[in-house]
């Protein structure tokens, strides 16, 4: 009799433990946020936007409870399927890298109004590139003029002190196509260079191309012939020709978007769009429940834009002047213009 009572007690205690165990697992488990990153055709090893976006995602993975999945687009045909794939799996955030994906993000975000999207350097647009203003799409834009101003100040100071290769108070910029993001860079560059060296002449040329280095090389050669000895490339892959032309002529060049230190020994600095910061911030917003549609702009103020010193040892006084300028832009006492000053 006692034996069977013990048995019942034993069974009851086992059942209780089971219940307790179940109670433990059914408690509020921390949500794992699913983030999908779709690269453009440049792929992850582009040493530029796609790579930096992945860096931002990896950082978010270490800081938050985030499952980050990446898909590389092999052709423009892949944008819509790749975005759709993540969206159909109810990811918490789908990130498209680069303006090439604008129409694809516009299409897919319309089909999945409950899925959040972010796009670097673009918006969700229709086929005519009009912003559809979907509330579930966040555009991650950059104040290119901030980054341009930093390298422009460096160029101006070098010219003023006669520390460039062939000092003649002439510098230049080679733009790809005369479109807003390109001109923002050049505006900040010219503004800051003129501020540091008031007598400076800033030559501006356009290659009308973003891919063919030969075209940019031509523009650069003309500028070098006109005594420019610091050349700022704002033309993507085409601009590599600017860096090469500067290297061959023995003058300085300035890289763009990502750190282009390794592209050519002539690169003394690079104007940076910190796509990693932008990507990380977008993910952070989703995790914190603060995601909202519309534009998010990255600048020196939120450490989303900046510059890197590359193959050059900068004199202490110039570095101090650069730090001062950066602090003033950050504080808002100086604001680089978005339009190229006359």
């Amino acid at each position: 009799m006692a034996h069977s009572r013990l048995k019942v007690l034993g069974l009851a205690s086992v059942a209780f433990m089971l219940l307790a165990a179940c109670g433990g697992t059914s408690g509020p488990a921390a949500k794992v946020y699913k983030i999908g990153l779709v690269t453009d055709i440049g792929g992850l090893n582009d040493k530029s936007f796609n790579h930096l976006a992945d860096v931002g995602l990896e950082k978010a993975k270490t800081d938050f409870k985030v499952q980050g999945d990446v898909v590389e687009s092999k052709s423009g045909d892949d944008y819509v399927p790749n975005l759709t794939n993540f969206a159909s799996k109810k990811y918490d955030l789908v990130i498209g890298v680069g303006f090439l994906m604008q129409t694809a993000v516009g299409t897919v975000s319309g089909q999945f109004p409950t899925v959040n999207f972010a796009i670097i350097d673009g918006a969700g647009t229709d086929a005519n590139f009009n912003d559809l203003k979907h509330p579930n799409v966040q555009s991650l834009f950059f104040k290119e003029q901030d980054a341009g101003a930093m390298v422009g100040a460096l160029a101006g100071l070098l010219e003023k002190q006669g520390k460039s290769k062939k000092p003649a108070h002439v510098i230049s910029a080679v733009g790809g196509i005369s479109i807003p993001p390109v001109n923002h860079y050049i505006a900040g560059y010219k503004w800051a260079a003129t501020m540091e060296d008031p007598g400076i002449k800033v030559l501006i040329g356009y290659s009308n191309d973003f891919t063919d280095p030969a075209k940019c090389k031509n523009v650069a050669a003309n500028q070098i012939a006109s005594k420019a000895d610091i050349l700022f490339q704002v033309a993507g892959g085409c601009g590599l020709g600017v860096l090469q032309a500067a290297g061959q002529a023995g003058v300085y060049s300035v890289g763009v978007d990502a750190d282009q230190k390794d592209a050519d020994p002539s690169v003394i600095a690079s104007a940076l769009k910190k796509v990693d910061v932008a990507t990380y911030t977008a993910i952070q917003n989703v995790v914190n429940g603060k995601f909202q549609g519309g534009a998010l702009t990255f600048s020196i103020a939120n450490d989303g834009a900046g510059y890197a010193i590359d193959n050059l040892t900068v004199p202490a006084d110039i570095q101090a002047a650069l730090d001062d300028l950066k602090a003033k832009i950050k504080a808002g006492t100086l604001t680089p213009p978005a339009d190229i000053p006359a």
Partner: protein
Amino acid sequence: MAASTATMGRRPGPRLASAARRVAGGFAVPLGSVVFAFLVGGLIVAVTGGNPFAAYQGLLCGGLGIACSTTTGENPALQISTTIVFFTPLLMTGIAVALPFRAGLFNIGAEGQLLAGSVACTIIGIKFSNLPAPILLPMVLLGGTLAGAIWAGVPGVLKATIGAHEVVTTIMLNYVAQWLVRYLIVGGPLQAANGFSASSPIGAGARLPLFLPNDPGLIIFGLPAGVYRVHTGLLIGLAALVIFAILLWRTSLGYEIRAVGQSPKAARYGGINVARTIIVTMLIAGAFSGLAGAIQIAGVDHNLTDKYFNDTTGFDAIAVALLGLGSAVGILFASILFGALHAGGSVMQADAGISSSLVQILQALILFSIAANFLRVLRLPAFGRRPSAPAPTAPAAALMTEAAKAPPGETT
């Protein structure tokens, strides 16, 4: 005429069993090369620290919508529709490579012909954007077809008249087409007025209808219907395969093409106008490729964009034609395989973390094993082939041997 030449190509009907054996033998090499590619690809994944089974599960799920993992939440219907969108242009560009192959011509220019078709379709679709679909849709498709035919006709005429090698001329015309597209939409007359490298969209009447309406309220297989992008171009592609098979096996022109491919001298001796056959073959091939380009614009993209700068459909088509042994059925299966690989690569990368570049490796391995032809042992008597049949020594020879056979439909 058509009937009599078809009879000329017919041999005494073999027994069903030997026919089946021959079909099996015919498909042994392409199947073997695919198996070989997947084995080596799996080895590469394993050696580089990945899980080949997870990789191929991702490929299968992403490409064909089967064997999907329950944890990743892939939608099989969505994956199948993506694969169909990807393989539709391969059907027609595959023909554009296979048909000249039968005539002994290497058309490496399917890509350029496709681009010519895309450009023509875009121009017509924008210029006449107000016309209703029953008029405009045939116009853009015919325009694309014609442009592709002209693009391939030039190398055809050059080959037939002055003997310029079609490999060189078609490759060069690829570049001309690519740079023409670039010029047109980067600072050129087709660029839309917004600074982006793309044309304006074609008119609504120039667009191929989708199988499912793009209606956000309509939910099919758990997703809004608009995500299934399968368009009626698929039907055109399948019809093109039927036309290709009939043309090749049931018309006097098809007989002439095959005869020229086997031996131009013998064909000439037999009274065939070789120069005319070469030109007509290239015109028809280009027409198929141009149609594919028009269908991509009218069915998928609706405008000419910078993605066409580095489109590879016309190059994948070479592999499709080789893998499909230049037959309509073969092209269909090879297209499905390549479309599935294309669609599956992304899912594999998203789910299994294996770079989608594995797909390019697999495609290259398939091509490699066909081109190197070391799998020809699969065709030896052990596999049921008649010992008297000579083993082909090169892929071209393999196709020519295929060409010498009776049409597949007549053997049963």
